[in-house]
């Protein structure tokens, strides 16, 4: 049962890491546009083609 001394703190550290990740994602605005985020995942990754201004 001595293994608890390692495992319990380890589990707590993992939990805290999860919490920190959640708070970070919240702060960086990842929950601001949930509808858009769903679509962005399947959109093309190509960077937007930079048209030369003369072409327009």
């Amino acid at each position, binding site marked *: 049962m001595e293994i608890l001394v390692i495992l319990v703190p380890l589990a707590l550290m993992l939990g805290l890491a999860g*919490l920190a990740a959640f708070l970070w994602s919240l702060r960086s605005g990842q929950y601001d*546009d*949930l509808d*858009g985020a769903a*679509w962005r995942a399947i959109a*093309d990754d190509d960077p*937007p083609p*930079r048209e030369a201004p003369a072409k327009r």
Partner: protein
Amino acid sequence: MQVTRDFSHYVRAAGAGLQHIDLAVEGVHCAGCMAKIERGLSAIPDVTLARVNLTDRRVALEWKEGALDPISLIDRLEELGYKAYPYETESAEATEVAESRFLLRCLGVAAFATMNVMMLSIPVWSGNVSDMLPEQRDFFHWLSALIALPAAAYAGQPFFRSAWRALSNKTTNMDVPISIGVCLALGMSVVETIHHAEHAYFDAAIMLLTFLLVGRFLDQNMRRRTRAVAGNLAALKAETAAKFVGPDEISQVPVAAIHPGDIVLLRPGERCAVDGTVIEGRSDIDQSLITGETLYVTAEQGTPVYAGSMNISGTLRVRVSAASEATLLAEITRLLDNALQARSRYVRLADRASRLYAPVVHATALVTILGWVIAGATWHDAIVTGVAVLIITCPCALGLAIPTVQTVASGAMFKAGVLLNSGDAIERLAEADHVIFDKTGTLTLPDLDVTNAADIPANIFQLAGRLALSSHHPVAAAVAQAADARSPIVGAVEEAGQGVCAVVDGVEFRLGRPSFCGAEALIGSVTLDPDASIVAFSKGSEKFILSVRQGLRPDAQAVIAALKDRHIGIEILSGDREPAVIAAAHALGIAEWRAGVTPADKIARIEELKRRGTKVLMVGDGMNDAPSLAAAHVSMSPISAAHLSQATADLVFLGRPLAPVVTAIDSARKALHLMRQNVWLAIGYNVLAVPVAISGVVTPLIAAAAMSGSSILVMLNSLRARGASREIA
């Protein structure tokens, strides 16, 4: 005169030599639009950020300072096929967003703590019946305390604050028993842990907070979404005014950038966006949005004009005054303040339930303690049992009963085109049994329509519409819209105050005053509506008369019938003249009506109905309706309403039909029914659990199971509020 558009008011510095603007965009609803807009805008050199928010239908743009004008970005969006307007976050919306984030943070903390405390609790529960050493159990309890105490202190803030506010106002609300329950559960658990006892309730306390925060967050998020849509609609209305920036130079600026003392130009066909006094010019103005009166008023030097008035014929120069200077407004504001004070006395269902619930539960706990002491238990055991009663009855399900229904119901209303302004509107709307309608702009459409279009040959009507496109007059605009005209007739000339004429293939067309078209003779021959504006159209020697007025909303009759079916009383209170009100009342079959009513009269009528115990729903749009909207039990406004009314109304509905009024009443009634059902479910659950708690055999496992079981039951029941409401026959 030179006209420029100036949106610099909305541009703000984003640091590092960048400038930022937020735009509300019409017509963005899919991933395709998102990619198209982002690519189209990023392609412009010097644009450093173009990001669409699909949830809120907005675009955030950043560019190198001085390199671009925001106008060019808006024009580029227009080329891409999207109308965009600069958008300024209202303070109300900013508060909702901040609150929503705070709740999500609390929820994250509480959820983390619940999961980890559970991880420690389950071994204890199973260990208690097998071979766990007391030292191991204590270790787990101390670890639980280490996690649960700080987490509860942080995540419980929304409840503790609200409970404290209620207590310092000498009232109670649902958060008071919640806070007491959580604090006692945690406190007792700490004491028990110190004494190496078998049971600690850290898990139950923190799980309770998590469940309640889920309900609070969902509720808040729905409100935030409604606010965002309302904010966009306000931006899309694009309230601008032509402000004089030089003696001969005007600039189209947003209303927010106009200050008292500025001079603005009001051209025919424009709606005034500010309050002020006319300093030059003479014109007819339509003040129906302010007073409900549909007859035009003559404005000349010295006449006060209010935001929302429509300028009909001439050009006016207006000096902007501070809102409170105008007498009509000051009167309305005074009435409004009184009415708002009275309204805040409404007690929500949740708070009424908690007023009954809290004393009963706390008394039960006290009786339990005394009972056990009398029965010979030690004080310690008796108190532990008493606290267990409080924990098991802690109103978890009761706390969720109302917000969850509210969230689901407001989501359903949102889809039907009804936005909620206030949190308790659903409860109050469900109780309404008498509807008072304003006429102008509420039963009728806010814009003009041609009423006798059916009597005129279609090709002639089409021609009249095309000719009307060349005029600025609002009546002409109504003709053009009714005829769905797109291409103006080339070479049409407008004669100010008379009409428009054009010559095509040697035939002369004229549209305007009957005298302008030589059609005076016709006026006597046709029976026309006394309130309508008359426009004549002539094609060569053929002459026609068009009657233009505010038409009834397309489904007004059906809505009135539907309300009667539901045994809801209906009446009209209008500031307009008697003949106009009678006509509308007859057309809709409404027996009770009053015409020429002042804002004070409207309030008096509502008070009279209140004294008879009637719950009044007021539906109105004019500024003169604002005080009565606040005085009524619950109120609704169309989206076209004056600012003040829209801000005062509990609900705002979108679009031309009146049907949202009935839909909203139906959804609200259904929601209230479910709320009551949920409250009884929660109480029923507690009635079953309390005897177990009083008998002193409750373990933390039973407490946790009871709490989550009842909460999930209540949440599932709430989902029933989503169901489709009855169609209006």
